């Protein structure tokens, strides 16, 4: 589904990603861990198409197509979803209206008519129940005055509505209390299928207790320096990142 080959990227003259290789197949959950400043968030932004980053070398293949030249919205239309670490506040645009717009713009891009209002309401009801979101929440301005937990729940709600093929969860566990973490993880697990894939970007092990990865990769200094199974995450939790740094630097 996703194949990243020798990806180099950065901002202006500063190189941040220095040769990433990663393959994600349908049905898989990958975790990308690493110390602060290793390039985790850059990698997720580059996959989603943030313009401020320049890809200097390598390719991002999604469903057999190089998506490197595509705009962020075109990638979204193909089924790439990024859950933001810091979701943006949009006053005056309700959660419902925002997601309606996102869904209908995606349908428009595929040559489909707008989703009938009745179907939309049904879908919203279904998915908001999944994330234990109440109705009042849906009419609030997007992310405005939301708590950390509400913001993340709203991100996963949007993911549930858009049903992406590839979901990248960027530090979704940050700012979540244990109940919110459970709800969010539960939502992600329920959406998981044989046809879609998830990349979980996280600093800590705790989200991975709930969303169990098939593969764990350690990103350090712009490169994936170690890959393994879910036990690697436990090892990192216990020992920290210093031993990885020493291994790499040695």
């Amino acid at each position, binding site marked *: 589904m996703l194949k990243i080959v020798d990806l180099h990227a950065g901002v202006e003259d500063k190189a941040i990603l220095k040769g990433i290789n990663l393959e994600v197949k349908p049905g898989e959950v990958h975790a990308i861990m690493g110390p602060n400043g290793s390039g985790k968030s850059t990698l997720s932004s580059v996959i989603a*198409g*943030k313009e401020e980053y320049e890809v200097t070398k390598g390719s991002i293949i999604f469903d057999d197509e190089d998506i490197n030249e595509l*705009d*962020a919205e075109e990638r979204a239309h193909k089924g790439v979803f990024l859950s933001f670490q810091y979701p*943006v506040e*949009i006053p005056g645009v309700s959660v419902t209206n*925002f997601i309606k*717009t996102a869904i209908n*713009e995606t349908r428009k891009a595929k040559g489909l008519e707008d989703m009938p209002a009745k179907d939309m309401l049904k879908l919203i009801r279904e998915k908001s129940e999944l994330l234990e979101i109440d109705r009042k929440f849906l009419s609030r301005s997007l992310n405005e005055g939301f708590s950390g937990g509400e913001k993340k729940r709203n991100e996963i709600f*949007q993911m549930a509505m858009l049903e992406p093929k590839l979901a990248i969860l960027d530090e979704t566990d940050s700012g979540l209390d244990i109940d919110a973490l459970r709800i969010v993880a539960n939502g992600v697990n329920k959406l998981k299928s044989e046809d879609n894939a998830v990349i979980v970007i996280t600093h800590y092990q705790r989200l991975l207790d709930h969303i169990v990865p098939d593969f764990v990769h350690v990103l350090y200094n712009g490169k994936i320096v170690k890959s393994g199974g879910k036990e690697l995450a436990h090892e990192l939790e216990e020992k920290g990142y210093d031993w990885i740094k020493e291994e790499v630097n040695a």
Partner: protein
Amino acid sequence: MDLKEKLLSSFLVFENKVDIDSPIHDVRNEAIKVFEEKGFPSKKEEAWKYTSLNKILKEDYSLFPKQENAIEYKDVKKYFIHDIDSYKIVFIDGKYSSHLSETTHDGIDVCLMSVALSKPKYSLIIKNYFNKAATTDSLPALNTAFAQEGAYIHIPKNKVVDKPIQIINFSTGNEAATMLQPRNLVVAEENSQVQIIERHQSLTENAVLTNSVTEIFADNRAIVDYYKIQNDHNNASLIDNTFIKQKRESIASVHTFSFGGKLTRNNLNYYQNGERIDSILKGVTILGDKQHVDHNTLVHHIEPNCESHQDYKGIFGDSATGVFNGKIIVEKEAQKTNAFQSNNNILISDKAAINTKPQLEIFADDVKCSHGCTIGQLDESAMFYMRSRGIPEKEAKALLMYAFSNNVLNSVKIPEVKQRITKIIANKLGVNIGFDL
């Protein structure tokens, strides 16, 4: 002959034509003297530093359109807020259009200035209010000199007007360039309420210059809400002079939506004569091309325990330019004044520009006054957020602009007006968001 000379010489003809015995005969003559002395304002004056009238004054305007121009309702329906019941006072090239209007004398007077100026029945109100709020700056004075037609609205004590009043000035441009000087008077007596929507609309590409004066009097506990929709052609210019005198516990709001026109100057002046008054000034400006809008506001706090709230949002693209000059005067007696002013702007092109200048003159020592202005670009991280959810760039921009204007749009009390404004914004940005915000 330049425009000033043309105006001065045609004043004599005008005075002979209208009633010499008119109660405002002397007022007109005083006013033309003021204009003769001061002339049109130039950029040398501080208040006109960023707005030059030179170009628009060069046109050879026809001052008194001769022919009656008829318009079919179906052709101009879109300029009305047509999905609500309303009173309508409609002018075509400065002349009253009875077939497009719906006036009333049933408990309230919603009618014509020309009638109010000529019938004895109205002479007391005219004597007490006409030209009692307008200043003697040159442009209001020029309007006063030629004041003849406009809206006359008188709401007696305790009367709540049952539906909004629309004042629409159409210009057909059938006689090439046209200059119009509508004169409106709104008197809202004690404890009355009225909502007014005003629009100036040119129907051709010929140049139009409108120099309008609106005087509004809000007596004790009256509530007046005024909405100005400015979305005219690129050859139409508007100088809007609005003067509001408020008495004790009255609330007066003016929303100015500036989306078009070649040059628009809004001189909005509030005078608070009483305690516990609230004055509300809000605006959304979205401009492109070479359009220019200048918001020049004054709130004069004269007595204690009053408030004023100013919130102007501006979005400027292409080579559009904007000015915000907000003056707040708090007199020594006006203790416990709460005066807020905010002006936020987004520039979406390198050639667009905004000059913003708060001007606070505070003589009282126990007041709360705040002001703030910002100039920025569209938030890139918000753009990426929306685009990553599948919303294309253009639509994402539109949503951000809505979000930016949201505070102001939310304070519009007539839902149909708010809907119309969001629709104009969507059309202007060329998007169809698919829902009403």
